């Protein structure tokens, strides 16, 4: 409503201004018309004066004023000093004498136009003066009553029109505002109805126009982010509740049983060692979980630098070489000769690759092989890690990258189930993707794809 009122006020002011200007222009045009008429008349009179002299002029006057009503047209012949030589019937023009006297006398051959107002008479007139020969000034006055009437009529029409326009535009404004507000109200209601239990609701787009749709879209994006954050929060809480308690349980258990048993130095030493181990495990899990949660919810701050992928991969291979040898696994590589440089967080990329290599070596049996390859295209870098392990069952594939997920074949091996999750979220925060293909019984291939910077 306030919007409409403001709009109505603005359009009213605008209309008023416009119509005032129009009114003034019309009046000016009317006056010019009158002036032209008078000027032509004076010009003719000047010619008559030259050819027929004073008498001819007076004759012309009498003829003219005889033809028209005395309250429409008058004339005066005045000397340059202001003495009235001859004039028409000025009875209808009471009160105008003084005005005429004070009306300025032009110079020889010059015209002058002025509007005369009479105080007690409702009429006003346009006076045109012409200095005929330096001694005699001819003055013609034309009543403006017709013009005034026209002008009044015009003003009335203008007023009516502007009132109508203001009214209509206010109505139109109200209608448009209502439309927009309906859209805004709809979005507001939808968003207000969202709380922690239905964060997946979204504002539907409607028919109120593009701006409202953009508003709805912006809200939806924000809702999406909030949903992701709440999800991460829940996940972390759930994980904390479940998996972090295991090491604590073990530590507590061993400490309690050792301390309540008979004092034994070896037992105490063992207890100490177990506590150390479990603490390290716990710290590692906490750090990794926090890292995943922060990365997934978009709050992680990465350290960016130029990373040379080839040397990163070669370093990783070097690191895992002895381990592979120990397990009798062949570690193969296929890396390009030239440098491949990306912008990214070196430590985290190292970690992602190491996690995948670690995985591959863990699940590949003796005499198997693990193959690390790197391919580059114009737009992306693809790193593949293939193994000849037992493979992953198709029903397990979609959940493979979930936190704490351990597949059937991996339950007995050491590990906390966070490695793949972390690798995936690291790759994704570099705008890449981590995918896996697997054939049970033959092996699996994990593929990292990272976009290259545009040259």
């Amino acid at each position, binding site marked *: 409503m306030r919007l409409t009122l403001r709009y109505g006020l603005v359009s009213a002011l605008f209309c008023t201004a416009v119509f005032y200007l129009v009114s003034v222009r019309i009046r000016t045009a009317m006056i010019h018309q009158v002036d032209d008429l008078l000027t032509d008349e004076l010009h003719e009179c000047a010619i008559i004066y030259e050819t027929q002299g004073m008498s001819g002029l007076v004759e012309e006057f009498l003829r003219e004023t005889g033809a028209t009503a005395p309250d429409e047209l008058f004339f005066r012949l005045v000397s340059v000093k202001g003495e009235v030589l001859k004039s028409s019937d000025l009875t209808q023009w009471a009160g105008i004498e003084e005005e005429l006297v004070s009306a300025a006398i032009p110079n020889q051959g010059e015209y002058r136009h002025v509007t005369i107002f009479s105080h007690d008479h409702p009429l006003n007139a346009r006076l045109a003066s012409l200095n005929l020969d330096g001694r005699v000034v001819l003055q013609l006055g034309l009543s403006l009553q017709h013009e005034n009437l026209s002008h009044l009529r015009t003003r009335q029409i203008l007023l009516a029109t502007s009132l109508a326009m203001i009214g209509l535009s206010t109505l139109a404004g109200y209608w448009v505002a209502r439309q927009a507000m309906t859209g805004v109200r709809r979005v507001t209601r939808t968003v207000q109805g969202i709380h922690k239990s239905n964060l997946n609701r979204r504002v539907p787009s409607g028919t109120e126009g593009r701006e409202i749709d953009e508003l709805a879209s912006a809200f939806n994006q924000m809702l999406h982010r909030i949903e992701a954050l709440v999800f991460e929060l829940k996940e972390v809480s759930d994980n904390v509740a479940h998996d972090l308690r295991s090491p604590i349980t073990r530590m507590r258990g061993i400490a309690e049983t050792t301390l309540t048993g008979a004092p034994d130095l070896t037992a105490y030493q063992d207890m100490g060692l177990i506590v150390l181990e479990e603490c390290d495990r716990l710290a590692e899990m906490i750090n990794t979980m926090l890292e995943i949660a922060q990365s997934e919810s978009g709050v992680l701050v990465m350290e960016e630098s130029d990373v040379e992928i080839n040397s990163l991969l070669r370093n990783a291979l070097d690191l895992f070489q002895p381990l592979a040898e120990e397990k009798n696994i062949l570690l193969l590589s296929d890396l390009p000769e030239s440098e491949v440089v990306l912008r990214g967080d070196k430590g985290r990329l190292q970690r992602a690759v190491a996690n995948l290599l*670690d995985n591959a070596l863990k699940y590949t049996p003796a005499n198997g092989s693990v193959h690390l390859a790197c391919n580059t295209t114009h737009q992306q870098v693809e790193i593949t890690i293939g193994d000849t392990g037992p493979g992953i069952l198709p029903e397990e594939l979609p959940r493979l990258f979930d936190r704490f997920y351990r597949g059937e074949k991996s339950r007995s091996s050491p590990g906390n189930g966070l490695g793949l999750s972390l690798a995936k979220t690291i790759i994704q925060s570099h705008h890449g993707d981590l995918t896996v293909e697997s054939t049970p019984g033959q092996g699996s291939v994990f593929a990292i794809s990272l976009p290259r910077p545009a040259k």
Partner: protein
Amino acid sequence: MKILLIEDDPRTASFIIKGLRQEGFAVDHADNGEDGLHLAIETQCDAAIVDVMLPRVDGVTLIERLRGEGIGLPVLILSARSSVEDRVRGLQAGADDYLMKPFAFSELLARIHALLRRAHAQADPVNLLAEDLQLDLIRRRVFRAGTEIELQPKEFALLEYLLRNKGRVVSKAMIMEHVWDYNFDPQTNVVEARICRLRDKIDRDFERKLIKTVRGMGYVLE
């Protein structure tokens, strides 16, 4: 050598003091920033360990004030917060090193030693020695009992690291960070496998075994 410890948690302070004294250091302790700053200015210490979260005056402010007084005491910051900004802030304020909690005490020790070495501008040795093992750092060659042993570059680096920290336990995480520039500890036994290989080369054929495993903590060369 005297170390100043400024840490407000009593249990943490307790084990650090105990550990440092076991290593032969003298330790002064303050449990808040104000007293810590006072001690740092008034007493003669060789290095300081400062916790970031302290009552009265926090760790970073303390270091700023210390440097403001023109005191160049080597400082190592301890923090339970892992954000990059924290680390950068601390180092910019004038700290010399930064260690995140929870930490392996052996790592704290190794870093303190590194700080002290730097502070006393000890010349970098050309040779590292232990018993009959000799490492020529210039020519990158290893000799044991006079015989040369062929080592790959990373194996040499690993042995060098163990030797530099001779007599002190180094954890797997420390090895990962200093030898391979990886700052995390992988779940599998990459480091163990590496140590095994190294042992094969420098310990197996000799009577005196130099590289020892310390369960739950890491390795030590002595």
